[in-house]
């Protein structure tokens, strides 16, 4: 099969999804080892990965998932208990799957050596199944002999499928005048896959064509794939030879059909030996190994989804009883055993009802393009609206257009929104592994996993969150002994929570660990030269915690390989801020620590207040503005040389925008104006008043990046196109504040 890229991409996407699902479910399984639904969904996911891998020709992945599936199948059939060891093995398998998929992604082929792991799996399988295996072996050894490929069908039949005297006479009695007795030999193709199913189809066909007297192998032997390629059948039918041959040949994988119309009356004497014959073939050592069966097929024998219902003993008794009983009861028995099997299988078939909503896979780039186009549309709508044509029809059209574009915008936004659960779900596995490694006992609680965020934001968030959680596990939660000593529950808790608050999404990571140690932080910061003693005295709690985000800071005495060397927290802050978000820390010694990240719902389109500064239009994102005022210069006061205003009893520093933007004009002229426009900006807990020249209007803006070259311009976060087609710069007010 050609690994063409279309398949590959889908293979990567889906295998990643299944892996995620597997990780989650194995974790669940560890907690609920008896839950059949979970076992089933784990099994299904492993099975799907196997199917995809086999199709793509990735043999290692196929082998690996196949072996894992075997184990899961044993678990499902209650032949194997779920214990910690088994869960570890499964997790290791998932890691190998990931490695192999990564190999394929990066190098185009499977490189990771899985042989040792396969042996490990094999051992797991064998440990529990020694008994079964031995039985299986004796089973196959003692089954009937190889069927020679002799042309002479009658001889074959005498050897393989003789009828007893009673059987013959019963048969003769029951036959009508137009009935014919046929000996049929059906040979399946060497390359036949799932030959037991093919064999079953052959038998089923025989039952349709007439009355199935007897077959070798028997139905249960066929179902257990306990036969070579030939099936011998005796049927009574009114159909002619040619019809019967062509009916059998219509079954796929049937290589040849030989048929012999039997003269029953002259063959009665054969029957006398039949009991011995039957014993012969059950005890013969002569097994035929089918060379054409592929290795996967071989393994699949172990993987029969049912528990092995007929072991050797039962088999003998079945053969014997078959012989003793008349042909009619024989048929009844087949039906009966079918019923038995069905009820047995019912147990295994309770499939879980995991909700999977139908989805369409779209390349994120296409969505970005769509968003871009919607942005263009918005801009042009704004331009049209700005034309100010005094015409009712025109106004009506503008109104309609406005509604449609707004809806369109919302829909596109919706499409881009994905639940944050997608990244939250990675963490339980990480918490499990890490806490195990550190000998800590930690529960991870997840809330608000269905909170939705723009896809591009979510992708960026995974690493920062991972880092915060790692920190919580490593530095936050104490070891169980210490917790107990301090009167806490042995088990630590980490709460991961997401919720929407206005136009922002808030994500919190909270632990009930030791909390941040302020003195220690200050000490470290001073020793690293980040702050001076004087600085330290002036710092409030928030400022101190914020030191943690300083590059090169680590409060841990010991550097562990888990949360690294203090690189990371500064990166966390940088990533969050690049997403136009903010991060704070709340902590109480001995009680715990909480990281709070707030993010905008989306990045691409936002509401903004348009202002004029030095005759240029600028945009200020609305989510950063708390209010705007026109104040008189008399209201501007001075505190320590800084212009401030008083708003509802709080003093707000005033910042002249032009100065922050380094505009080449005379600063401070606003004090000579009659009224001064001030935009109050909220940045975290801080408020500032931005002084601009003129307040214009509020409108939707499409945020465009300035491109790599202008990326680091201070205090400007992007640009947008306004109504008249002009470019307006977007103020990075958080930075200004």
């Amino acid at each position, binding site marked *: *099969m050609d690994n063409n890229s*279309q*398949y590959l991409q*889908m*293979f990567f996407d*889906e295998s990643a999804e299944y892996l995620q699902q597997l990780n989650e479910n194995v974790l669940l399984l560890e907690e609920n080892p008896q839950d059949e639904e979970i076992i089933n*969904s784990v*099994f*299904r996911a492993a*099975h*799907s990965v*196997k*199917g*995809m891998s*086999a*199709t*793509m*020709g990735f043999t290692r992945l196929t082998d690996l998932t*196949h072996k894992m*599936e*075997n184990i899961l*199948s044993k678990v499902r059939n209650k032949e194997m208990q779920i214990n910690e060891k088994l869960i570890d093995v499964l997790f290791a398998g998932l890691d190998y799957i990931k490695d192999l998929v990564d190999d394929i992604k990066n190098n185009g082929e499977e490189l990771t050596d899985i042989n040792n792991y396969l042996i490990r799996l094999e051992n797991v399988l064998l440990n529990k199944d020694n008994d079964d295996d031995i039985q299986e072996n004796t089973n196959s050894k003692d089954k009937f002999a190889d069927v020679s490929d002799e042309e002479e069908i009658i001889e074959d039949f005498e050897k393989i499928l003789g009828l007893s005297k009673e059987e013959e006479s019963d048969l003769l009695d029951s036959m009508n005048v137009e009935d014919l007795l046929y000996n049929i030999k059906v040979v399946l193709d060497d390359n036949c*896959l*799932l030959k*037991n*199913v093919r064999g*079953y*189809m052959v038998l*089923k066909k025989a039952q349709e064509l007439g009355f199935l007297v007897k077959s070798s192998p028997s139905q249960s032997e066929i*179902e257990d*794939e306990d036969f070579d390629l030939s099936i011998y059948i005796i049927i009574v039918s009114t159909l002619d030879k040619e019809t019967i041959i062509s009916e059998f040949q*219509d079954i*796929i994988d049937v290589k040849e059909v030989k048929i012999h119309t039997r003269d029953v009356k002259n063959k009665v004497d054969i029957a006398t030996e039949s009991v011995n014959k039957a014993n012969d073939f059950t005890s013969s050592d002569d097994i035929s190994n089918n060379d054409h069966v592929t290795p*996967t*097929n071989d*393994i*699949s024998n172990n*993987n*029969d*989804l*049912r528990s092995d219902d007929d072991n050797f003993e039962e088999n003998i008794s079945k053969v014997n009883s078959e012989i003793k009983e008349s042909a009619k009861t024989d048929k009844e028995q087949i039906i009966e055993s*079918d019923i038995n*099997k*069905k009820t047995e*299988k019912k147990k295994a*078939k309770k*499939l*879980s*009802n*995991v909700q*999977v909503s*139908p989805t369409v*896979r779209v390349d994120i780039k296409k969505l970005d393009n769509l968003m871009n186009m919607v942005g263009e549309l918005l801009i042009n709508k704004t331009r049209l609206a700005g034309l100010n044509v005094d015409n009712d029809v025109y106004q009506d059209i503008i109104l309609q257009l406005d509604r449609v574009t707004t809806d369109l915008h919302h829909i596109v936004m919706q499409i881009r929104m994905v639940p944050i659960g997608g990244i939250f779900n990675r963490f339980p596995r990480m918490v499990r592994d890490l806490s195990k490694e550190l000998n800590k006992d930690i529960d991870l609680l997840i809330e608000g996993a269905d909170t939705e965020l723009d896809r591009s934001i979510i992708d960026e968030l995974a690493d920062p969150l991972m880092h915060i959680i790692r920190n919580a596990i490593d530095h936050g939660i104490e070891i169980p002994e210490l917790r107990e000593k301090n009167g806490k529950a042995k088990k630590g808790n980490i709460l991961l929570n997401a919720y929407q608050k206005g136009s922002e999404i808030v994500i919190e990571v909270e632990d009930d660990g030791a909390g941040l140690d302020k003195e220690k932080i200050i000490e470290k910061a001073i020793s690293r030269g980040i702050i001076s003693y004087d600085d330290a005295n002036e710092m409030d709690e928030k400022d101190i915690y914020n030191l943690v985000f300083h590059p090169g800071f680590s409060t841990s005495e010991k550097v562990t390989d888990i949360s690294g060397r203090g690189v990371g927290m500064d990166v966390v802050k940088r990533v969050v801020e690049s997403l136009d978000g903010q991060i704070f820390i709340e902590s109480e010694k001995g009680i715990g620590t909480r990281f709070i990240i707030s993010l905008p719902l989306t990045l691409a389109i936002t509401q903004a207040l348009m202002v004029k500064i030095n005759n240029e239009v600028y945009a200020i994102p609305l989510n950063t503005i708390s209010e705007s005022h026109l104040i008189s210069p008399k209201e501007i006061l001075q505190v320590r040389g800084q212009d401030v205003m008083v708003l509802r009893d709080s003093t707000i520093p005033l910042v002249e925008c032009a100065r922050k933007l380094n505009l080449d004009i005379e600063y401070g002229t606003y004090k000579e104006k009659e009224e001064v426009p001030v935009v109050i900006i909220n940045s975290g807990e801080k408020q500032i008043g931005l002084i601009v020249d003129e307040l214009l209007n509020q409108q939707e803006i499409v945020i465009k990046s300035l491109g790599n070259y202008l990326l680091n311009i201070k205090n400007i976060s992007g640009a947008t196109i306004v109504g008249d087609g002009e470019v307006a710069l977007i103020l990075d007010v958080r930075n200004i504040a």
Partner: protein
Amino acid sequence: MNKRVLVVDDAAFMRMMIKNILIDGGFEIVGEEENGRDAIEAYKDLQPDLVTMDITMPEMDGIEAVKAILDLDANANIIMCSAMGQQAMVIDAIQAGAKDFVVKPFKPDRVLASINKLFDE
């Protein structure tokens, strides 16, 4: 006229695989479903000439779906898509009335041989 096919498999990857094989073989894909329950609804709506049915699927497995579809239409042509290790379930499906089966990984010629045999009769 091309025969109309409904493809049922929970893995989009597998659906794409078999779709491409069928399209190359001159069939028309009229629908895709990812579980047995939806497959039954789709069968009612689309009345396809053929259904390719995966076995292990969430919501409702392929065997239950085969039974339900045959209850609706005793002449429905259903081919099971099986992987190694599912023999017993395939047998169940055949017993329930599925016409044939193909084995994953799919080999285009074998898939088409199975299907064409159905329509030759």
